[in-house]
Structures are given as structure tokens and as C-alpha cells.
């Protein structure tokens, strides 16, 4: 499993936890956070807050408002992770 895939997996775990979903509920990358999964803005904020803490990245919540689907969330997190951690590696 690649690092991106591992992060995506963690995102799905957290979505499941925040929405208190059952283990057999399916989450697809194409699912829309609000419309399909019922995640409100507070839930999204909790998701990104916890990911930013676990992954040690600083995400601009203003930019996160464009997130619609689970895939968008994964891409947003992975992009931030790669930008910030590659910058950290370069500067160290």
C-alpha cells in the first residue's frame, strides 16, 4: 500500500468514526460528504482537524471549503502532506 493509499484509508476510518457508521456501511471515494454521507460542516472540520494533527500538517480551512467528495478530501490532504513534508525535507 502506498503512502497516499494509507492516508486515504485513515481518512475513511475517521469519516466512519465521526459519522458513527457501522462497519458494513460502504464509503466510496465518489460519495459526496454532505449529500451522500450526511457530514455537516462541523464534521468536516473535525475530520480535517484530526488529520492535520495526526499527519502534522497545517491545512487552510478556507481552502477546504471546496471539498465535495471523499476523493476531494483525500486529494486535499495528500497534496498538503506532500507539499509540507517535501518542503520540510528540503529545508532540513
Amino acid at each position, binding site marked *: 500500500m502506498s503512502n497516499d493509499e494509507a492516508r486515504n484509508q485513515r481518512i475513511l476510518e475517521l469519516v466512519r468514526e465521526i459519522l458513527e457508521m457501522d462497519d458494513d456501511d460502504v464509503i466510496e471515494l465518489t460519495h459526496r460528504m*454532505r449529500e451522500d454521507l*450526511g457530514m455537516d460542516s*462541523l464534521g468536516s*472540520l473535525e475530520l480535517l*482537524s*484530526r488529520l492535520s*494533527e495526526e499527519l502534522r500538517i497545517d491545512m487552510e*480551512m478556507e481552502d477546504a471549503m471546496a471539498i465535495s467528495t471523499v476523493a476531494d478530501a483525500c486529494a486535499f490532504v495528500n497534496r498538503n502532506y506532500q507539499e509540507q513534508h517535501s518542503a520540510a525535507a528540503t529545508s532540513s
Partner: protein
Amino acid sequence: MKRALVIGGTGFVGLNLVDALLAQGVAVRCTRRKRSITVYLRRRAVELVEVALDDPEALKRAMLDCDAVFYTAAPYPRYSIDAAAEVEAADRAARAVVSAAADVGVPRLVFTSSTGLLDPAPAGRAADARDIPRQMPQDSVYRASKWATHRCFAQARREGLPVSGVLAGGCIGPWDVRAGTGGVLIGAVTGLMPWYTEGLVHLVDVRDVARAHVAAADPRLAPSDHCLPGHTVALGAVIRQCVARYGGRVPEQVLTVEQARTRADLDEQQAAAKRGRVPFPREMVDIVSAGQSIDGQSALGRLGMELTPLSSALDAAHGWFLRHGYLSAGAEKENERCLTMKHETNASLS
């Protein structure tokens, strides 16, 4: 004050309080729970400690070496459905804080309360801290919850703990993550508030409330309750002011208090099943229906403060909501779900 602990620093009042403390050069320690939204707090120069209120030893460790402890984390009922559970949660949390503070010997404990707690004042004077109910209010889950918190801290003060309360009006301003009173602004500006009920509301800039907390921690002030209602205005006038300044729509339906209670209760019953939000929560109906003149000048004088104009508070809140997507197309979709629920409620009422 050299060091302070903020319990509830990830929330609306808490974040603004942290800013007010940092601006005064105070070292700030904040508690957080596992699921706290820490993304905003972590950008500030604070010490963050994971503490659950049911862990007394961790709570006491967090309070050590602090000149003041601020409690801005009193439970806020999400729905006005289960009064007993809300009161029990408020009481349990307050008792944990008070007990730890007493054991540690905290020099000053300041907690956030609400002017919505006050009973009607006797004829001839404005309401103030003398009108804090002696018995648990039976007409409002929100008021009952606030009463439970207040009772616990007031009891601790009677027993000698240096406790001060800040009874704030509806807070307006930046960092309103859960969009409490600010939900009125959002509803008006998005044009999706379906109805409202008319009455007096008290709105105060959250940054004034934060400064009031800091001032109330001054050891030269005797421990007491400070009423900070802010600006007293009719709710309809606030909505019209928001629409005039930022666009949107004034709701056509103005319900009586009884109609509003019925509607809000039905909305909340439906929303609770999906853990959704309602367009006009029951606690807002309770607050509006209990609207009265409240003396804020006495506390302003004691605390050495002046109020920020309401327009500045609204501008700050609107700017923050705009930047954080609460007024965007996505947020409107969330509000539309509320509207759908409203239509379902209308159908069930007809």
C-alpha cells in the same frame, strides 16, 4: 496574571479568550478532548494538554501554577429534547471543574454563563444577577442547563472558592465554529431562514466577552457575577440590519412564541434523528421569548470596559463566516436540508 488555564479553548468564546489573554502577555494552557477541533487553537502560542473532565488528576495537573482558570466549556444543549440528560451533563462537568479547582487552590475561577438564564426582573428595574433563578427553570432545556452550571459555581463561591461568572448575551464575532447566535446572521444572509419570532435579544461582541473574562480574573475584584448583555435589540431589527448590510432575505413568516415553540420542537425532533441542524433552534425561541431589559452598565463599570458597536461585531462575524465557507453554496445546501425539514414540518402541522 502570568499563566492561565482555559477549559474550552477550542470553542467560540474560548478561542477569543485565548487571544485576549495572549494579547496581555499571559502564558496560556488549554485543555482539549480527543475529538476537539484543535485546528484553530494549534495556530496560537498555547500549551495544549489532553484532559477529560472525568479525569480529576489530569484536570488538577492542568490547573497547577495557574493564576486563573477559565471555564468556557459548559455543555450547550444541541437539542432542547432531554432536559434531565442536559442538566446532568452540565452539573457533572461543572462539579469536576469546581472540585479540581478547590483541591488545587486556584486563585481565581471564571466561568461563562448566559443572560438567557435570568428570570424576569421585578417591575421597575432592569434584570441583573439578583434574578438568577433559585429553582431550575422548567420552561427551557437551555435555561435549565445554564442554571445547573451556575448553581454549581455559585455554591462553590459560597463555600469560599474565588469564583466569578460572566453572564453574556448572545455572542457575535469571529471563530464562531458552531455558529450559535451567529446562525441568525447566516440564516438571514443565505435567505434560508424560514421564520422567526419577535422579541428582544441581547447581542455582544465575543471579543468583549473575552475581555470581560480577563477583567473578572483580576484579584482586586471581589468574586461575583457580571452581566454583560451587550446591545439590546429586537430580533427582527437585527435580521433587517444583517440583510441591509450583507444581502439576503428577511423571513416573511413571523410566528408567535407558542407557534415558534411548536415548530422548533418538531424541527428538533426530526433533526435529532439525523443529528442535523435546525433553521431556528428551540433555545433561540426561549431566549427571544424571555427578552427583557438587563443592566449591563454596572458590570462594564466594574470591569472597566466599553462595548464594541454591534455593527462591528456583525461585520467581524460576517467576514469570518464568509472566509470559512458558512455563506457559500455548499453551506446553502446544508441549510436547504433544514428548509426541506421545515416543509416536512409544515406538512405534519397542516
